[in-house]
């Protein structure tokens, strides 16, 4: 499934599709270059899910935690600054996988872990000023 948006904010229909996927599979992994719009899309997705807290980049903190209106935790990861997968294991990633919805930026950094976890994959790229989101398994 593919979505193209003219402006960074025009992502609502893709967010609704992502919500539907999360109902079946709570792990969603975002891949794309720096500046492709991963955090921007996750902001829209979180808003559509009813999260009222500020959704910002977890690059420094590695993981931000939000709550859905029903109390379900949403973990927003960013593995940009880790150097190898053991760091993700170190922070207890498997515990997070079992504890709520996991939205993962820079999944490229933990491909070995993700290969063994069922997840929805989202590739984000930019072409001629348009953002293209491709959902896959």
């Amino acid at each position: 499934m593919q979505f193209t948006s003219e402006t960074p904010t025009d992502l609502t229909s893709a967010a609704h599709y992502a919500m539907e996927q999360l109902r079946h599979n709570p792990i969603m992994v975002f891949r794309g270059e720096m500046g492709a719009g991963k955090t921007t899309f996750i902001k829209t997705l979180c808003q559509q899910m009813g999260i009222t807290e500020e959704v910002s980049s977890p690059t420094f903190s590695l993981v931000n935690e939000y709550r859905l209106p029903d109390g379900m935790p949403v973990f927003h990861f960013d593995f940009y600054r880790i150097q190898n997968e053991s760091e993700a294991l170190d922070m207890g990633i498997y515990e997070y996988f079992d504890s709520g919805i996991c939205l993962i930026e820079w999944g490229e950094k933990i491909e070995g872990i993700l290969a063994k976890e069922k997840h929805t994959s989202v590739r984000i790229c930019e072409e001629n000023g348009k953002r293209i989101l491709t959902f896959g398994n």
Partner: protein
Amino acid sequence: MNRTDIIILGIESSCDDTSASVIRNGEVLSNVVAGQEIHRLYGGVVPELASRAHESNIVPVVETALRNANVAKSELSAIAFTKGPGLPGSLMVGVSFAKAMSMALQIPLVEVHHMQAHVLAHFAQVPNNPKPLPEFPFLCLTVSGGHTQLVWVTSPMKMEIVGETLDDAAGEAFDKIAKILGLPYPGGPELDKLAREGNPAFIRFPHPRIDKLDFSFSGLKTSVLYHLRDKEKEEPGYTQKNLKDICASVQHTITDILIDKLNLAVKKFKPRDIALAGGVSANSELRKKFGELAQKRGLHAHIPAFEFCTDNAAMIAIAGMFKFQEGIFSDLSAAADPRYQDSQFVTHKP
């Protein structure tokens, strides 16, 4: 030691660095940060080493802090620790240690909010070198790798976040743009160095149009990325050739965005004092513009020494001292809280 002395041991382990500090009546007797040495050896911030290192660092760091302060454990009035926000595993090391030590010494335990402590770092005094303290109420701009906040501080305990970043933190913008430019991560300080010799008017990057007192830096990151991509197509080698000017233009834009909002907040809150906190306050351009703003508006400007700007335990001890004076203690059921929210530190955007 005077019987009325308040001596606090502060412990900070929220993210990458393990730190311990001893303060007496607001004077910092020691402030030890472990981690930097390890990080320097391995190049940059290495969370794996850091998060595991908390456990092996905590005992030597605390012992060194006590020894450097020339204070015996029996003299401590209380132990203050970072409850959150931060990484669960990292926080837990500091919390468990602080609880065990307070139980063993039979002294009070004080939990501290990490971001509140950054603001209160301004009250850290160095022995024999007193500096003017900010007067309440004041405005504090906290800028670091993980945070960008405008805080209206009405008392040591009561603060409101009146503006914050909607996406990337200012320090993160510096580091990521430095990475785009091929500088090593975290490249903020390197970018600052190169920018000093460049022309800040070389490229005019757009400022985000964000309502009220909030910030945004992710658009700038994208603008830099596209600008370099387009220019490299026309003229291969463009980035390297103009590196200093590009750095200066980026730094000019980031610091302008920060200072513009601070200025807007000054107009709104009309403080007499403004303060800068967090690791990015080391940035030379930001310090310069901060000073100029204060001068233009006739305000007192406060920038803590750099060791109190980055994550450190002295600020935790200072925040702990204020709570200690108010008699606000925790019991042994205290726990790390990665999303810690203090009822006295709230978001209230005008």
